[in-house]
């Protein structure tokens, strides 16, 4: 498992997570990420033979309910009012292309 990460990889991660980093930030995060990834190496030596990953600790499965509104804690209008821009019943955003 590679413990280091390049500046290019940091920039790629920033793009994936829609963050804009200054050059100084990218360099700083690269160094910090390398330190943190180095620390993660402690897991390399741990045997996980026959074990499955844990995604949640409650043991709950398939918690479902009927698709009817029983408890309405907010209206669509309330949520729309939070958006910086809206039109009719839509959140309005800038053009994509």
């Amino acid at each position, binding site marked *: 498992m590679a413990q280091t990460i390049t500046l290019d990889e940091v920039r790629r991660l920033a793009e994936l997570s829609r963050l*804009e980093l200054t050059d100084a930030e990218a360099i700083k995060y690269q160094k910090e990420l390398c330190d943190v990834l180095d620390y993660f190496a402690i897991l390399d030596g741990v045997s996980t033979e026959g074990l499955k990953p*844990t995604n949640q600790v409650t043991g709950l499965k398939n918690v479902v309910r009927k698709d009817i509104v029983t408890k309405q804690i907010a209206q669509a209008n309330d949520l729309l009012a939070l958006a910086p821009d809206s039109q009719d019943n839509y959140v309005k955003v*800038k053009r994509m292309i």
Partner: protein
Amino acid sequence: MDTFKQWPSLQAIADAVNNGNETAESQVITALKRIKDLNGVYNAVLQTIEARSMKRAKDIDALVASGKSAGKLAGVPFLAKDNYLTFDSETTAASNMLKGFKAPYQSTVIELLEAEGAICVGKANMDAFAHGGSTENSDFGVTKNPYDITRVPGGSSGGSAAAVALNMVPFALGSDTGGSIRQPASYCGIVGLKPTYGLVSRSGVVAMASSTDCMGPMTTNVADAALVLDIMAGGGDPLDSTTIDREAGSYTEENKSLNSIKIGVVKEWFDEGLDSAVRSRIEAAIEVYKNAGAEIVPVSLPTLPTALAIYYIVVPAELSSNLSRHDGQRYPSSADSAEDLHESYTKSRSQGFGAEAKRRIIIGTHVLSSGYYDAYYKKAQTVRTKLINEFDDAFTRIDALIGPVAPTTAFKIGGFSNPLEMYLQDMYSVGASLAGLPAISIPCGEVDGMPVGLQIITDQKQDKKLLQLASVYEDIK
């Protein structure tokens, strides 16, 4: 610390209000004045909710005057960590990313507490988005430790902890993802409870890591924590499908007997990382339990030293997903000018998020990305299973685990410049979070005038036993 007379117990306040001996209004006025007098120095509170809390107080007083009870927490003022959605106030999670956000609904926990007459008088400071262990990552300034204003109160529920220690309010709400209730409770000398994962609804609280986030009370004593938990543990919330059924009966049920109680001392937590003076306070606390009749048993959890690595893979992964909703399009905070949607996303997020949020988002994105997912995220979640199995096994032989909350007492503001060094401070608290176990921090002494917290952990859904064991120590010490 000054000499303000402490708030009575929550039970005593509610009884006085329900009997008409005290008014809810006077409780709110006292809290708001206390906050006003102290917040300039300590910065524990981000905003007060004056109009609504005064109105609710008047309504409660009117209800009582008409001969009805106003609930188990009638007139009790409290603060909510600023990641709880509340009416008539901003909910910012101490981040510029949520500046201007006024929630259109309240968190389930707030609703439950209000139904019992409690009154939210304000929002407490925190590390932005709960990312941190010192409250230094707040976008609105650090909170000062009530015992020493050059030191941090801990985090991320630092504002809540400081406010309770300062007697601004008799209780506050915190959240604990990897220690964020327990560690500030330890640093500020108060009681902080992280319940079993799923016992308390997460609906209406800004999410950090969905598989470990727990909502919990921060109080000056165990009985108050038990009472607040009894109300917060709603018994399944249709708005949060990860909520579990609660134990039968009330969390306030007392049991002072240590007959046949076995307490496990976790070998891996008494390592070279633990400050020696803190260690001796913890060992003295364990002696208290031994002298009171508990059997002290050495326990080893060999996978425990890897818990921090598991945590800092899984949690950034989960939070990077939870924070993707902050895109500049849904909440008020948004970049002023952008050419297109892509630029609006990147500018809004870059302006809104602080350094720690960005750092964790980048770590999380990396460990989930193609080519790295198996080596990091999947591996961490699998070692997590191994850790959980070891906890399960230990609990077949013992009733509770005991140890430190944090390696030291509260450190100096600005004491850590290196993120990894900061992360290491979580080493004793993340284990219980990853396994969803209930855990409490109770004050057990001081080192050089700074408080030390004792950590007790029980098996899932043994929160009642946990509170009872904590109460025994509190009585004796």
